């Protein structure tokens, strides 16, 4: 078969790919390893061309070549073999184990490729297959459980989940703790990990500690996740993937279903109440709406409807299609990929769609190489947003619907006979369907990134490279929140929500970032024994952003949302930011006989965010690594590879811009500390001093970390590989807004304080446990522990508040703090008084006594995390699973406050709403001793008692231990023979599920302990803003041809 390709790409680069064609024939054969087992997935190419193929599951291949052509066989971990085509058409090739096993390069900082043996620190990686197995569109969630020391939290689910990615614990009290994301050598923002198309990722390297990342500068203090996107390879190929996911609510909070609406006093039926302190459900007919003038009223049985709240939610779906076209040879390659997905949420009417497109190409000339990577991302989300007359989350409205009210019959709040707002059951809080229909938020995101890189080889040991990247990012948000009006009023309503007007909000945010690195590299074998690798570079970072928001309330035209039709003042603000940084750095590696390596690096930064005197700061690092298995002949046996490494590093970090002087602001009437009014009042202006003061002479903060690691591989074929790493990092001079006494006139002081220490151990084990002809089983286990401690803060300051969703409201009762001598972050909450053994103290009336101070409840990040990923293959089938286990932490989900208020908590009915002996309690016998309480009953078991119980938030802090089956996938790869007839190179069918099961301690009846009210450092607070946990399951088909 003669084929001729002429592919022309019109870009800044024009090149032509041609195939040589002469007298070709089809050469077939089998490739095996040195044990005689067939090797699937071996790359077979005709040297000097882009003709290529791969061996199939049985190790067989077929390729077009002419006599005299050289076939090159390559496979990861094995020595590349070459074979010259002769007269025979069938060949048999055996690939030997590569003596330099585990010498495939890993991509390290700045895209510099290194062999793992040269590195003094540990590096982990996740390959493309593992990232895309269960078709998650969010790359962050696809990394869970696969790398030790990496903690990824999905802080809120919903159609576009938020994630928090932290390596080796929190180092910074109030600053950023999330890992730096680098794509093809270009430092990107944290959100890029959620947006990038996982199918575009060839491999992901995780540099866990500052040691690995000193070359990136400040942001790398928190570790780096390096993403390398795929390059086009081989002859022109097209890959199509389609998938369909469905998602369901997996766990809804547990509610009591014994007592129904009413109260005042407890046990009295008030059919239109929203709280459940009334009588027991007994099935009698009760009104479930107001009564019309003519006497019509909706009557329903007074008994709970099963899954009344859960049935509000839908089965969501995601449909995703992607196409990737690529090709390449030794000198050039290109890749074009487009991915589109559309998600309908479990919350009815929530919708999210996103599109990513990427084009990358590179071309290598004699001494010069150039490449470019353009990517574009856009998304649109339309979701329900907090609203109503008290601006509450959707969950609140569900909880305020009692279990006997037929929620499914109340969808038509506009005109339904008993569902319309004028007469419906909803007298105190709005109908959840009304909220879902009228309180909407639309978000659009556009991101365009261009990464270019050029490299020139002066000689075979001296080269220079320049990487320049640019990202333009903008978001635009519009809130359309409808109002509540009544067409009429029934005579004598039980109660009525006051009508309110519609409002709208528009917010636009634009940012531009440029990052450039210019690096000179010297890579020279100095003598037989010594090898030198030096990188010297200069980095420039420029960024600017602007945000503008306008709001208007009480709009005059219904369903028309523009601030021009508002009543009252135009609200909003305008914010801009500019930042510049420059760094120069050097990295030096001296290798001795390929088994001993000494590395050192240093970097100096100049930043615009600090004053002139403190603007420049320097930080070095050094390390050593030793490979005994190469150093000592005869050491290798069952132990095939051993490497020990030790490194120490220091990284500096600068503050955010505009933090070097305190300022004044016109109070806006709504922010904390400014609620006393919105200035200007007409023509009367006012400027209040900012509540934050700044310490003069701010310095950068520094993190010093030490790391020791051992990597090993056992058995032929490196069937068992692993690493053990221990680290200790100390972060000092933290740039923190510490809370100071408000009697000073400042609420916070931005200053350098404190020291936090993190210590931990990480163990990774990966094994090919079974390898036979038909069946194989691979298992990976990773275990990580992290101990954090606040060593010091400031003289006289023992504790600082880090955050909490209601921190503005000082009466709230729970907060995340950093306290000297304690792990960080720590949850503190109000509690009852307890004796030395932790038993609750009750008073003479039998009621527990409140403790006036907040008490510590425990840390909110896990003591240890164990992750497991495993793959079984049998002939064409493969089964893949990922699970993880986290424990040693606590959390507080504030949805329980809504449940307690409405009388829906299970614990409120354990004594049948009657007075009871508070479990595990004691009382003072008068002499200062505490005796076990077996007879003093509480003053009540209803509304009054549980309302007071609700003030002690410690009652709701639960163990956050959780085991999750994160991913499960069953794949079937179609036989080569079968699909060849169809013209496909590869066809794979997958059935998969994500977040299928979650096992929690019995005390956690509320939600997923990973949820958090924000992605910030105050971890451990779930709120009513998150949708209940969901599970996804789906099917996908991938075709390559």
């Amino acid at each position, binding site marked *: 078969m003669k084929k001729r390709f002429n592919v022309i790409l019109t870009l800044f680069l024009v090149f032509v790919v041609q195939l040589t064609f002469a007298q070709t024939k089809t050469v077939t054969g089998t490739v095996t390893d040195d044990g005689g087992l067939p090797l699937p997935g071996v790359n077979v190419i005709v040297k000097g061309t882009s003709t290529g193929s791969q061996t199939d599951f049985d190790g067989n291949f077929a390729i077009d070549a002419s006599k005299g052509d050289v076939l090159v066989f390559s496979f990861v971990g094995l020595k590349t073999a070459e074979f010259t085509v002769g007269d025979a058409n069938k060949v048999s090739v055996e690939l030997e184990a590569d003596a330099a096993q585990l010498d495939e390069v890993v991509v390290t900082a700045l895209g510099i490729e290194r062999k793992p043996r040269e590195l003094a620190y540990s590096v982990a990686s996740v390959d493309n297959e593992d990232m895309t197995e269960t078709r998650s569109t969010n790359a962050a969630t696809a990394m869970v459980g696969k790398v030790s020391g990496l903690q990824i939290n999905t802080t809120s689910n919903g159609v576009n989940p938020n994630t928090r990615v932290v390596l080796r614990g929190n180092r910074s009290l109030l600053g950023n703790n999330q890992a730096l994301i680098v794509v093809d050598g270009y430092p990107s923002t944290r959100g890029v990990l959620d947006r990038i198309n996982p199918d575009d990722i060839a491999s992901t390297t995780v540099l866990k500690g500052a040691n690995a990342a000193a070359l990136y500068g400040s942001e790398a203090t928190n570790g780096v996740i390096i993403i390398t996107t795929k390059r086009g390879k081989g002859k022109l190929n097209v890959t199509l993937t389609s998938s369909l996911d469905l998602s369901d609510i997996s766990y809804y909070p547990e509610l009591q279903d014994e007592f129904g609406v009413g109260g005042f006093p407890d046990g009295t039926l008030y059919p239109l109440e929203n709280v459940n302190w009334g009588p027991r459900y007994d099935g009698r007919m009760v009104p479930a709406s107001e009564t019309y003038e003519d006497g019509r009223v909706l009557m329903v049985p007074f008994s709970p409807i099963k899954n009344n709240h859960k049935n509000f939610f839908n089965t969501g779906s995601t449909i995703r299609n992607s196409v990737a076209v690529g090709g390449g040879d030794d000198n050039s390659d290109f890749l074009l990929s487009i991915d589109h997905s559309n998600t309908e949420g479990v919350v009815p009417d929530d919708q999210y769609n996103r599109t990513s497109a990427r084009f990358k190409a590179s071309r290598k000339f004699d001494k010069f190489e150039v490449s470019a990577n353009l990517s574009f991302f856009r998304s649109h989300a339309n979701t329900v947003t907090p609203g109503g007359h008290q601006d509450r989350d959707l969950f609140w409205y569900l909880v305020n619907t009692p279990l006997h009210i037929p929620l499914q019959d109340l969808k038509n709040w506009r005109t339904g006979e008993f569902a319309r707002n004028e007469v419906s059951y909803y007298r105190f809080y709005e109908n959840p369907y009304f909220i879902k229909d009228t309180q909407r938020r639309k978000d659009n995101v556009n991101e365009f990134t261009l990464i270019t890189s050029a490299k020139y080889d002066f000689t075979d040991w001296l080269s220079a490279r320049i990487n320049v990247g640019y990202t333009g990012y903008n978001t635009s948000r519009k809130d359309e929140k409808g109002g509540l009006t009544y067409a009429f009023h029934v005579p004598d309503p039980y*109660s009525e929500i006051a009508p309110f007007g519609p409002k709208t909000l528009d917010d636009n945010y634009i940012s531009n970032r440029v990052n450039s690195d*210019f690096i000179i590299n010297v890579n020279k074998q100095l003598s037989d024994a010594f090898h030198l690798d030096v990188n010297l570079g200069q980095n420039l970072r420029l960024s600017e952003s602007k945000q503008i928001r306008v709001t208007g309330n009480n709009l005059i035209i219904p369903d028309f949302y523009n601030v021009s039709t508002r009543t009252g003042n135009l609200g909003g603000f*305008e914010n801009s930011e500019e930042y510049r940084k420059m760094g120069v750095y050097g990295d030096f590696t001296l290798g001795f006989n390929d088994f001993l390596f000494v590395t050192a690096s240093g970097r100096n930064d100049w930043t*615009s965010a600090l004053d002139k005197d403190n603007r420049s700061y320097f930080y070095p690092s050094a390390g050593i690594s030793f490979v005994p298995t190469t150093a000592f002949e005869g050491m290798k046996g069952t132990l095939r590879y051993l490497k020990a490494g030790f490194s120490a590093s220091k990284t500096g970090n600068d503050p955010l811009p505009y933090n070097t002087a305190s300022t004044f602001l016109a109070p806006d009437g709504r922010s904390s500390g400014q609620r006393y009014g919105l200035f200007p009042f007409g023509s*009367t202006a006012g400027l209040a001093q900012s509540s934050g003061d700044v310490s003069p002479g701010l310095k950068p903060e520094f993190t010093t970390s030490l790391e020791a690691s051992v990597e090993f591989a056992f058995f032929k074929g490196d069937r068992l590989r692993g690493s053990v790493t221990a680290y200790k990092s100390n972060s000092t001079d933290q740039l923190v807004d510490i809370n100071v006494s*408000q009697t000073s006139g*400042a609420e916070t*002081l931005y200053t350098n304080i404190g020291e936090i220490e993190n210590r931990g151990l990480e163990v990774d084990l990966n094994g090919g446990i079974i390898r036979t002809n038909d069946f194989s089983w691979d298992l990976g286990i990773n275990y990580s522990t992290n101990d954090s401690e606040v060593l010091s803060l400031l003289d006289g300051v023992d504790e600082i508040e880090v955050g909490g969703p209601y921190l503005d409201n000082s009466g709230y009762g729970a907060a995340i703090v950093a306290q000297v001598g304690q792990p960080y972050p720590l949850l503190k909450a109000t509690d009852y008084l307890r004796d030395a053994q932790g038993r609750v103290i009750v008073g003479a009336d039998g009621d527990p006594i409140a403790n006036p101070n907040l008490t510590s409840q425990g840390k909110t990040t896990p003591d240890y995390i164990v992750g497991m990923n495993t793959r079984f293959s049998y002939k064409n089938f493969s089964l893949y699973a990922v699970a993880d286990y986290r424990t040693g932490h606590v959390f507080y989900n504030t949805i329980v406050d809504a449940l307690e208020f409405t009388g829906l908590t299970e614990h409120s009915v354990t004594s049948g709403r009657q007075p009871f002996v508070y479990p595990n309690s004691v009382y003072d016998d008068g002499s200062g001793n505490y005796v076990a309480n077996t007879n003093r009953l509480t003053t009540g078991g209803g509304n*009054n008692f549980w*309302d007071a119980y609700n003030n002690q938030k410690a009652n709701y802090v639960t163990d956050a231990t959780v085991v999750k089956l994160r991913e499960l996938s069953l794949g079937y790869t179609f036989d080569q023979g079968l699909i060849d007839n169809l013209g496909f190179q590869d066809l794979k069918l997958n059935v998969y599920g994500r977040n299928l099961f979650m096992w929690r301690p019995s005390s956690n009846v509320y939600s997923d302990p990973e949820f958090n009210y924000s992605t910030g450092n105050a971890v451990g607070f779930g709120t009513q803003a998150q949708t209940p946990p969901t599970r996804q399951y789906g099917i996908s088909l991938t075709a390559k041809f």
Partner: protein
Amino acid sequence: MKSIKSIIKNSIMVIAATAITASCSDDFFDVNDNPNEPSVSTPSLTLTAAQQSFTYLNATSMNYLGNYIVYNWATPSNWSANQDLFRYQIDNTFYANIFEDSYGITFRDLAYVKGVEDASGAVDYSAYDAIVETIKGFQYQHLVDLYGDIPFSEASQRGSNTTPKYDDAETIYKATIDSLTSAASLALDLPLNAENPGSADIIFGGDMGHWAQFANTIKLRMLVRLSNTGQDAYIKDQIALIDANGAGYITSDVSTNPGYSQNLYQQSPFYGYVGYNEAGEELDRHDFTVATDYLISLLQENNDPRIDLLFNTPTKGGDHKGAPQLIGLPGTGFTSGDLSKVGEGLLKSPEQDQPIMLLAEALFLQAEAVQRGYIDGDAKDLYEMGIAASFDYLGAEGAEDYYAQPLENVSWEASSNKIEAIITQKWLALNGVSGIESWIELTRTGYPANLPIPVDSDGKRPVRLLYPSSEYSTNANNVPAQTAAEAFTNNPFWK
């Protein structure tokens, strides 16, 4: 090929050169001036902000808390609110904003205004200083009354002193009395080049004579507060200083108005807190703040026409009705529609002036001072003028007929205990306006007598608030330790 090589070589050199030159310019990094918030202000701009925050705190949180403790208001059965007020659940998060916002917002801005000086000496800011000292006097008095020992001499230095020490209560009182004396004198005797705040002063519009009167009145209030401490000689000496400056006491209500309007966050503070929102709709708080049964019966027994201005009749119809302060109110007959809510005498309009100190209060203070022999005057006359001023403020009529009735604590002659009558009438006059002052006076005098205590509490009325938890976590070495019981047992120093 050769030309490409040299192009590349040249490009690399250009890039290297640019890189190096970019590092040399210091101006390159000079982009850290905040474009979103100015780093400078003027005394007039910040004085206005301080006066508004001071007014707001007094009109909302302090006023609301006080009204509940002196048993003016309750909460209906269909609302879950104010339980902490009925349980007297005083801990160190309870109304912590009274302490925190006084220092953290108002004193902060006042300290800035006081500290501004014109380096060239061309402009003098003494007028501002006099105003600052007067407002500080007013607020520090309340803080000492509510908290006892508090930071004073080391306060408001921002980053320079983040852990101010706590000073003795009585020392602060006396120091404040002295600074009010000098503030009044300064206000009346300003340097020629003193800048007058003009319309930036949203309380008196730059009328310094009124400021002197206000300073004198606050000072009188502080002196009368010392009535139980056996320091009558000191009190009389200080009164002599008041008389010496000749400004006298206030002759009309002291109130703030920067230009309140019916806009979000711009309404008159009390109106926007307990009344109606910017769309004219009833606020939740208006629905859950209702009259107590005790107050309604008292007003009815005394035929007090102010009842219709202090409260609206219930929306479901019928005569005025109040409820006891009780968490477990019955669901029928005690919903918000069945009870009297805060009325139009107090909630006049979103643009209304926000009173800080009523003329009625000043008159009752003078009546008591005369009665105790501190100042000369006609106690009965001042008493009756006080009642009339209250009627006037609320828009009620018939003050003379009211205090002509021969009832205890209504008519001067018929009242066996004149001090009790003065304080009881003051409690009625301050209803809904200066609740915190009524509570403090109740602690000092025990009047009005027989005020009920909510059943859900432990039976004792609180006499102070506790230091906020923020102080314990940020100023632990200075803030005194307290137990929860102290809120009920540790009386202010002047008791």
